[in-house]
């Protein structure tokens, strides 16, 4: 599909908007619909779109397999880490009100890091699934 000039130009124009929309959904999940899952899937969809138009090799050059596998695991570790931070600062596991001087600010911080961890894992898994299914038949 990379020989078609219309698809190439449209892909290059829309990809930045998709990525910015993914970040918007992630950070505005507190004030509107959104949150970690939706942002992770939209971000992975942007990279899948690029890989569909320009080929799987180009997509894997853009986001290498090692980075995707690292993202997969890092998200779960960030989430569990927030829990342990709550434990270290005096509360129970996954207590947010101890994370800052003011309980409400502590909740803000906790929710921010937790949603970031979720978005990392979900986008990593969706992208890895696409790489595995798309790369299976070609090089066998």
């Amino acid at each position, binding site marked *: 599909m990379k020989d078609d000039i219309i698809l190439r130009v449209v892909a290059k124009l829309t990809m930045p908007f998709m990525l910015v929309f993914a970040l918007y*959904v992630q950070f505005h*999940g*507190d*004030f*509107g*619909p*959104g*949150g970690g*899952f*939706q942002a992770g*899937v*939209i971000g*992975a*969809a942007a990279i*899948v779109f690029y890989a569909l138009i320009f080929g799987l090799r180009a997509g894997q050059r853009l986001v290498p397999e090692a980075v995707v*596998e690292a993202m*997969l*695991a890092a*998200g*779960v570790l960030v*989430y*569990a880490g927030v*829990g342990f931070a709550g434990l270290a600062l005096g509360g129970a596991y*996954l207590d*947010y009100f101890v994370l800052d001087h003011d*309980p*409400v*600010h502590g*909740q*803000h911080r*906790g*929710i921010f890091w*937790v*949603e970031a*961890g*979720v978005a990392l*894992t*979900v986008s*990593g*898994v*969706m992208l*890895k*699934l*696409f790489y*595995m*299914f*798309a790369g*299976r*038949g070609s*090089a066998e």
Partner: protein
Amino acid sequence: MEALIIHVLLTAMVVVIVALALTRNLFSVVVLSGIYSFLMATVLVALDAVDVAMTEAAVGAGVSTVLLLGALQLVASREAKPLHRPFLPLVVAIAVGGVLAYGSLGLPAFSDPQAPIHTHVAPRYLNDGPRETGVPNVVTAVLASYRGYDTLGETVVVFTAGAGVIALLRRRRKRPEEKQRKTDKEGKKA
């Protein structure tokens, strides 16, 4: 008017599912399941479930369709005609549906403000949630703060799915050498 929109969309979903059950071309089946997910996301917006609608549209109509198409190009078949008419599964499905429909008569009517679902725990979250967590979106507040432990479990489930697919579909590079060693051993025995 709202109820009419919801009921019309639900009827459209029924039509799509009947078409999906009767089609044998697998590519059409995958496209119909994508259409079904989009209709589901629209119904969810009409039911005021905006977070769920965004997730269903992104995950059900986006990622699910991509994965099904990716698997379809690896599998590449057409569904075969069944050898015997599926009488028993039809009876089982209708029986289960009938019993559930009989049980649903005891449920409260659609959009009843006095239903227990609205008077039991929900007002506490709607009134105190934004004040305690500072987040106006009550769904995010409950998901990330009040029920944060469940979301940790869900993230681990997603991670396990990724790890499982990696384990199943990983390419083993040693296979040609193993084959060579096997044929050498058989040659030596003979």
